[in-house]
């Protein structure tokens, strides 16, 4: 009985923390329509800030809590809403998910830069050493505190939402946003407040949690997955539902920990990790119980430009070119570089798996590395000697598991698929990849493929194999996209309801594409032919895959390749870059390597808005250059300037290569758009064009003056990094500009409004102009009168 009571109380106190976290999630989701995947990261950041304020700076507990929970966190939440989230209002669900996931990754990176993980940061529990005796059980005050805080939060939120005008306005936004505006309310400010509130609640849960457990950025960030499971009980919208979910999960975890013998095994799986897998199990159960989502007609999404589908011929040529180029490069590379490039090619295959799923069908998965892991584990188990049959079997297993995972979530909207895959990643980490029986020693050794006389046992052969597989799968996807099934996917992305009324079974179509995607990711694992650490299959490893695939451009094969390259290059860069600070970085004592740790997240945040990616825009851009005289002139002048600068010793040789590449890949294709006069249907306003032009200039100049020779030791890595830099510069520029290929295709027309007169001039304009000219209103009226025919009265 004592034991039961002890675990009940422990369960309730963690339930209290989940409930607080989940209520923050629900508040932001219901009032702003954006599901904040970074909610856990908010809490994590708050917990670290609390440690910094309380432990490192020695501020007493109560002021420290006030600073973190009531000042810093709400401020942070509000700033995030204003700066990031407001821009993606009305964007597609995929974009919203990618942006918040990127924010999560960025915050995780940032926290690891500021608070390096190798130092222990104990946070003592509140009221340390004080207990209450309760029916023979000693309950620490801190546990009770969690319960009290949760109760306060519940009551407080209830009061806020029913008694205060502000809270009522938050609910009103959900009911009818435009009506609130017509009432004189400001939805923008309400959204900022709700994000502030959400962040404060995340902070409360983060601080409470960190006093119970050790302070770890990853653990705290991933706590959010438990929160998802809890919030799903209330369909992500109901606070009482979330509290109920929290109690269920908290108690279940506590009892599992208390009553299930960790030594117990089911087959090869030890049940010691069951508590960690419970959120995932709960999430799936709840998803299965949810009624099917109603088809919404005309979900309002910002219109996007259609992407040209490459012809099969182009795809074939591209595939051959890819294999030849990679083989040629690989044969010249130093062994150390070769390993890195091979790794990158493997990642490219994994990002390719998102092309049909996200690019064609508009669905999202946050567990691609998990499928890679399943493929790798299956291959390791069955594929001794590299049998092709084992590869096929591994891929088939991934496809089947993918279908099973997706089925419950796909009946619902896109956000649930993202949640389900995140939970699945966590589940697999706990129940498969952390099992000694399956992954002994924490590494999976995948045997290299062997077909007849060919065995991919060297890095070079492996590279060629991966290039061939990428080319084949890429061609297969292009073929699919050009045929009936691919058209259906594209149609489903544009209008699910229309597809249903034509007779398409949406669920089975979605399950099919998800299975295909899982299979390709599994192939990435089964064919990688190298050893993986179990960590590389975890959720934090999967998130950048999705993110960078979108950054690279999810709609196209080339985009997937860029994404894969980025994915490979960033860890490479951070390992090869000097660990010491160079140049101006020295003054903030941040090594370049650490800067790189959170750049991927930042990229995702800034680039998620243009999910079609860079590749198509760049391709269309070159064609437009020929038609625009100013663009041609600037291209030539720019290139000549770079050459001259090198000739006279201003720019180093490697830097010249870098700058030229950035210029040619990023700047030239966008020049026509930056330089063309504005047309009425042009959506890129002048400030954005100026910002884009500025960025391109800065990127080129920066590339020219980065001391590559000192930064990187090896030529191979220099090439990879420079290519990545060029691709990124282009991508950022396109993200800033928000261009569409049509705009690039449109012939450059002379502008009617060189000085910005774009609407009829009114009396008020004339008055304003007069004021601007320094004339008084009376003078203006006098002039108007002077213009009148004599005798006309006003």
């Amino acid at each position, binding site marked *: 009985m004592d034991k039961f009571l002890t675990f009940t109380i422990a369960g309730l106190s963690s339930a209290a923390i989940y409930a607080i976290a989940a209520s923050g999630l629900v508040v932001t989701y219901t009032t702003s329509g954006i599901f904040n995947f970074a909610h856990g990261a908010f809490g994590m950041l708050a917990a670290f800030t609390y440690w910094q304020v309380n432990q490192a700076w020695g501020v007493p507990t109560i002021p420290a809590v006030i600073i973190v929970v009531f000042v810093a966190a709400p401020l942070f939440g509000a700033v995030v809403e204003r700066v990031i989230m407001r821009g993606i209002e009305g964007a597609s669900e995929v974009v919203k998910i990618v942006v918040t996931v990127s924010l999560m990754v960025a915050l995780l990176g940032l926290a690891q830069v500021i608070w390096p993980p190798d130092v222990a940061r104990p946070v003592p529990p509140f009221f340390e050493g004080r207990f209450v005796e309760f029916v023979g059980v000693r309950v620490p005050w801190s546990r009770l505190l969690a319960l009290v805080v949760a109760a306060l939060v519940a009551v407080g939120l209830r009061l806020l939402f029913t008694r205060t005008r502000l809270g009522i306005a938050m609910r009103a936004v959900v009911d009818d946003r435009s009506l609130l505006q017509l009432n004189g309310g400001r939805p923008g400010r309400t959204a900022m407040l709700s994000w502030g509130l959400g962040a404060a609640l995340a902070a409360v849960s983060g601080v409470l949690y960190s006093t119970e457990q050790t302070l770890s950025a990853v653990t705290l960030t991933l706590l959010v997955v438990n929160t998802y499971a809890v919030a799903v009980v209330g369909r992500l919208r109901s606070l009482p539902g979330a509290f109920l979910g929290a109690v269920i999960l908290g108690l279940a975890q506590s009892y599992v920990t208390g009553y299930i013998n960790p030594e117990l095994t089911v087959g090869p799986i030890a049940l010691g990790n069951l508590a960690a897998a419970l959120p995932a199990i709960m999430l799936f159960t709840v998803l299965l119980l949810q009624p099917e989502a*109603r*088809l919404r*007609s*005309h979900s309002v999404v910002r*219109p*996007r*430009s*259609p*992407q040209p589908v490459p012809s099969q011929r182009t795809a074939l040529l591209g595939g051959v070119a890819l294999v030849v180029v990679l083989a040629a490069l690989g044969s010249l590379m130093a062994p150390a570089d070769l390993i890195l490039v091979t790794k990158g090619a493997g990642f490219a295959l994994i990002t390719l798996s998102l092309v049909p799923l996200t690019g064609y069908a508009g669905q999202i998965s946050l567990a691609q590395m998990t499928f890679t892991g399943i493929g790798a584990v299956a291959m390791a188990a069955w594929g001794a000697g590299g049998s092709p049959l084992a590869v096929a079997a591994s891929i088939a297993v991934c496809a089947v598991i993918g279908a099973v995972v997706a089925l419950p979530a796909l009946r619902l909207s896109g956000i649930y698929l993202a949640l389900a895959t995140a939970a699945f990643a966590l589940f697999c980490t706990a129940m498969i990849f952390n099992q000694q029986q399956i992954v002994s020693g924490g590494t999976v050794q995948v045997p290299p493929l062997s077909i007849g006389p060919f065995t991919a046992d060297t890095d070079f052969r492996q590279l060629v194999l991966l290039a061939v597989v990428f080319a084949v799968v890429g061609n297969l996807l292009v073929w699919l996209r050009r045929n*009936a099934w691919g*058209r*259906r996917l*594209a*149609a489903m*992305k*544009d*209008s699910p*309801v*229309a*597809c*249903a*009324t*034509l*007779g*398409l*079974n*949406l669920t089975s179509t979605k399950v099919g594409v998800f299975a295909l995607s899982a299979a390709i990711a599994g192939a990435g694992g089964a064919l990688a032919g190298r050893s993986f650490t179990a960590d590389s299959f975890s959720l934090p490893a999967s998130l950048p895959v999705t993110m960078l695939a979108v950054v690279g451009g999810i709609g196209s094969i080339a985009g997937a390749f860029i994404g894969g390259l980025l994915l490979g290059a960033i860890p490479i860069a951070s390992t090869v870059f000097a660990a010491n600070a160079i140049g101006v970085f020295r003054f903030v004592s941040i090594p370049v390597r650490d800067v790189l740790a959170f750049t991927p997240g930042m990229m995702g945040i800034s680039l998620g808005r243009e999910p079609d990616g860079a590749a198509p825009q760049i391709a269309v851009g070159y064609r437009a250059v020929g038609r625009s005289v100013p663009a041609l002139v600037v291209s030539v002048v720019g290139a000549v300037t770079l050459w001259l600068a090198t000739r006279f010793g201003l720019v180093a040789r490697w830097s010249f290569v870098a700058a030229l590449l950035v210029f040619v890949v990023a700047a030239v294709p966008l020049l026509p758009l930056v330089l063309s006069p504005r047309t009425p249907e042009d959506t890129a306003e002048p400030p954005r064009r100026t910002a884009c032009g500025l960025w391109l200039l800065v990127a080129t100049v920066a590339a020219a003056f980065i001391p590559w020779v000192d930064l990187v030791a090896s030529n191979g890595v220099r090439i990879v990094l420079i290519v990545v830099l060029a691709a990124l510069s282009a991508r950022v520029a396109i993200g800033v500009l928000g261009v569409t290929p*049509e705009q690039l295709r449109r012939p450059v027309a002379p502008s009617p409004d060189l000085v910005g007169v774009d609407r009829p001039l009114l009396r008020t304009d004339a008055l304003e102009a007069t004021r601007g000219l320094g004339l008084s209103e009376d003078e203006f009226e006098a002039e108007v009168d002077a213009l009148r025919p004599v005798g006309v009265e006003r």
Partner: protein
Amino acid sequence: MTAGEPVLRVEGLSVRFGGHLAVSDVSLDVHAGSISGLIGPNGAGKTTTFNAICGVTPPTSGRVLLEGQDLSRASTHQRARRGVGRTFQRLEVFSSLSVADNVRVGLEIRRGWSRRRRPAPQFLTGPDAFDLDADAEVDLIVDRLGLTELADVPVGALPTGSARKVELGRALAARPRVLLLDEPASGLDDRETDEFGVLLGELAAAGLGVLLVEHDVALVMRVCSELSVLNFGQVIASGPPAEVQSNHAVLDAYLGGRDDAATVAVTAAEAGVAIHPGEPGAGR
């Protein structure tokens, strides 16, 4: 007009959203080879009726019968496969696909399951078109809608009028038995509307049952053989257009009611309004 079994029969259909009864006990018949009109003021429940017929919105009560078969338990895509086709009031085209591909998707989805269904009538493709290959059939439909020159243009770049035609062509490519058209002529100019009327007549002549929701009452009066008028979610009048046009209830529905002591008392009681002859709210 057309005797015999209707191709689509709606019986006592009601849809309730929360406390709001959007469609209340609506019954309709659509006969093969004829065009039935459904008109009514904004908010009368026309689109909700459509959604309930094709399964996008689950009805609270009532039945939908297609050729005598009860569709009430079928999902949206199953209903489509049985032969319920529709267009949307707010365009639901595949804007990233070209005109031809929009039609092709409809056709391919149909070909995926048509073997399990007895041959459907064909529209726009002519009587000899049974064994056409997909490309030829798409070409025929695109051509018949006058979109040949735009065949490779993404629909997102088209003006509304053309996009509506694409939507119609796509629905027809699935060879429905009954077609629900939700304001198909909005966005068309006068000439296009006339052409559209002719096209509708041809479709009906080919054996299609059409249920038409349309604001352009002139068009409705011209092409429909039967007309139902919906107001407050209820059918307030039905019959041949000429009869309906002179019906006082209809004019009232459109132009606002005149006083009628009996209805006033009843409706006022329903609405929970106290009727005071003089000053109702002297509470100051």
